[in-house]
């Protein structure tokens, strides 16, 4: 099992290194296949490990830590280079390597003809390695290492189109936001080390109940900071929409399926600490709820196909946070898995559309695509239904469970969360189908018509890439792109059956081996919530249909709100005014008003003073002999008087 897990971890790294060192010797296509193969090898390892684990009996046996060497040590503090394979991490490994493999495969077609394909595939493989390190890491420090490296991979991939200033800026923003999260996590770890002397999961979790509540709350807060930053939750959410500047498969893999959900994994992984810190748990749930509502509201007015999906991602992760914060680890993880399926599907489908339209992403330029891309229409519909939570699609099963958990928590706070979750479901319905209808129905735009035949015209003017996809295949998509989309569509459809609320809980029990849920809804709660949620979701979908498909309802006019949403609640402007500008100002002022005149200037001044003193002494040296004699005589007088006086 462990060997397979190591294979799983190292295969993508080997792929990345091979592509890097291969350089020009490797053809572009070979790089793509190498990358894909390495990720699928990782998936194979994960599968082998999974079945090995299933073969074992008890929860204790199913959790195994492997430490080949000490990664870092100082004094009595040791951190092993260890991986932990247990029911939670194996789920993540499967998702990461599986979905990852599909998306890398998809990329071969999508990135066809890109200028720097090799770089892209190396980055992708590197990302998968980093993500696997994150989930397999056998202690908090390695988790943090993976945490940072996925941030790095994210930076590299968002900024892949480095000739576009927006892409570079977005990459920087993502990295810095994540660095903030890394920093708060590190702070939490420092406190943990100071109090417990260790960062290993076992020892620190065992020590958690014995820590003072201040300590444990602070540690949990630090962890939550990391989770929030990585998962683009309030208040560190602003980087995710910008990250859509990256290639679409990147958005699918990193910013939908895997990396952004790492925050949820973190909470689940460190649940013994969070469980000691109730306020932080509630905070996590509250942030999740707030994010899911706000992201949903913003998604209503976005016109970029990827950004709409990105906000929906934020919103869905909000659900997961809600669940994880409430202690429903299995439900959160379940939603994580299904979300990986259907969100990756949506992104990839969007990618197909963008690919088809030579890089166009604005939904106002689309319309009527159903006629030209029926297969895409179908998978997009599957994804949308799953997202909205319509049974039997996977999203239904997982989202309902979370909403039900909120209800089960009870109390005023539980009700607030519950209402927020329901409101979010409504919004999901609206924005999902707004997108769906705007893209696939209505009159085809000029652009769509231009690309309809697909055999002619040059497509070199897309926004996504300067070089464009000049020779993409006819029809909807090449095989390498179609296959992953199809698989994901299937998974989105049936993936929810891993767990059927109130009836069938293999997934819940599996996860419970690592973290038992704190709150479990009753079967009746489950069923009631299911009905309500589906109803609300369908209501939202109907509203979207009424407005955007049939025009029966007018687009509600509220310019103030519209502007608020379009400006994403003014978070960017706020951070710019409160953090960025003052920091730059302070830095500039320090440079010009302190460093220059005082720190460096003082040296210059001392030098000048020395020169002046020298000039003074030299002026006394008049060259006149009598002055010299006078100096001697006067000094003699002084010396004699002193001698006589002191004697």
């Amino acid at each position, binding site marked *: 099992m462990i060997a397979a897990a190591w294979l799983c971890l190292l295969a993508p790294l080997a792929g990345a290194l091979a592509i890097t060192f291969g350089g020009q010797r490797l053809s572009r296509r070979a790089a793509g296949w190498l990358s894909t193969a390495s990720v699928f090898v990782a998936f194979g390892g994960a599968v082998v490990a999974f079945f090995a684990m299933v073969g074992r009996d008890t929860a204790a046996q199913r959790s195994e830590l492997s430490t080949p060497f000490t990664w870092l040590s100082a004094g009595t503090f040791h951190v092993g280079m260890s991986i932990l394979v247990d029911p939670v991490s194996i789920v993540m490994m499967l998702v990461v390597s599986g979905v990852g493999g599909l998306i890398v495969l998809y990329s071969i077609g999508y990135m066809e003809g890109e200028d720097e394909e090799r770089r892209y595939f190396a980055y992708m493989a590197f990302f998968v390695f980093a993500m696997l390190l994150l989930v397999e890491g056998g202690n908090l420090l390695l988790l943090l290492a993976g945490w940072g490296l996925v941030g790095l991979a994210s930076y590299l991939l968002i900024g892949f189109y480095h000739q576009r200033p927006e892409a570079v800026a977005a990459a920087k923003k993502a990295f810095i936001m994540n660095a903030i999260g890394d920093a708060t996590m590190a702070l939490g770890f420092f406190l943990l080390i100071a109090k417990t002397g260790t960062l290993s999961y076992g020892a620190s979790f065992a020590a958690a109940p014995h820590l003072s509540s201040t300590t444990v709350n602070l540690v949990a807060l630090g962890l939550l900071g990391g989770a929030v930053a990585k998962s683009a939750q309030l208040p560190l959410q602003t980087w995710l929409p910008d990250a859509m500047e990256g290639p679409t498969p990147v958005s699918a893999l990193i910013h939908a399926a895997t990396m952004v959900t790492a925050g949820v994994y973190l909470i689940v992984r460190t649940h013994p600490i969070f469980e000691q810190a109730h306020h932080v748990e509630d905070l996590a749930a509250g942030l999740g709820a707030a994010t899911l509502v706000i992201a949903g509201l913003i998604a209503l007015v976005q016109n970029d196909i990827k950004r709409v999906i990105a906000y929906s991602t934020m919103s869905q992760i909000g659900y997961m946070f809600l669940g994880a914060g409430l202690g429903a680890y299995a439900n959160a993880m379940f939603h994580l898995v299904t979300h990986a399926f259907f969100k990756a599907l949506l992104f990839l489908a969007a990618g197909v559309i963008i690919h088809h339209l030579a890089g166009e992403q604005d939904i106002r330029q689309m319309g009527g695509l159903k006629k030209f891309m029926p297969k895409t229409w179908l998978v997009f519909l599957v994804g949308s239904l799953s997202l909205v939570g319509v049974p039997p699609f996977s999203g239904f099963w997982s989202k309902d469970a979370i909403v039900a958990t909120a209800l089960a928590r009870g109390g005023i706070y539980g009700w607030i969360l519950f209402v927020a979750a329901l409101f979010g479901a409504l919004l999901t319905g609206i924005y999902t189908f707004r997108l769906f209808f705007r893209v696939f129905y209505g009159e085809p735009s000029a652009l769509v018509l231009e690309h309809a035949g697909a055999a002619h015209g040059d497509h070199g003017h897309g926004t996504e890439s300067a070089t464009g996809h000049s020779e993409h295949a006819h029809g909807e998509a090449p095989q390498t792109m179609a296959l992953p989309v199809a698989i994901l569509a299937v998974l989105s459809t049936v993936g929810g059956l891993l767990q059927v609320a109130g009836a069938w809980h293999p997934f819940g029990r599996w996860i419970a081996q690592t973290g038992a849920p704190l709150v479990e809804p009753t079967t009746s709660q489950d069923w009631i919530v299911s009905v309500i949620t589906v109803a609300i979701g369908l209501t939202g979908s109907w509203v979207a249909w009424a407005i955007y498909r049939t025009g029966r309802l007018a687009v509600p006019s509220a310019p103030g709100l519209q502007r608020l949403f379009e400006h994403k609640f003014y978070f960017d402007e706020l951070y710019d005014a409160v953090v960025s500008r003052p920091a730059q100002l302070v830095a500039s002022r320090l440079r010009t008003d302190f460093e220059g005149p005082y720190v460096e200037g003082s040296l210059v001044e001392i030098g000048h003073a020395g020169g002046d003193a020298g000039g003074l002494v030299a002026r006394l040296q008049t060259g*006149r002999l009598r002055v010299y004699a*006078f100096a001697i005589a006067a000094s003699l007088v002084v010396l004699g008087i002193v001698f006589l006086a002191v004697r």
Partner: protein
Amino acid sequence: MMGPSVPWYLFVAGALFGIGTLGVLLRRSPLIVLLSLEIMLNGSNLALVTFSRHFGTVDGQVFAIAVMAVAASEVCVGLGLIVAVARKKLALDVDLFSELRG
């Protein structure tokens, strides 16, 4: 000891030394500066001789004689220099010898 006691002599010696010093400090002619130096040496000599008498040892007198020889040597070199300077047609004024300075 007949006549004035040692301090009287010493008064003269000290006064001569002081006068010589003033001469060196105030006069600009190198010749007169040399003469002033001679007066300083003579003051010292007088002190030496006086102390010699006071202690009843001839050391001081011997010293004084040696000093005379040294004074003669200094004058010899000094005058040689002054002549050399004069031959260069330079003004005999120590204040004007201030090209080397700073």
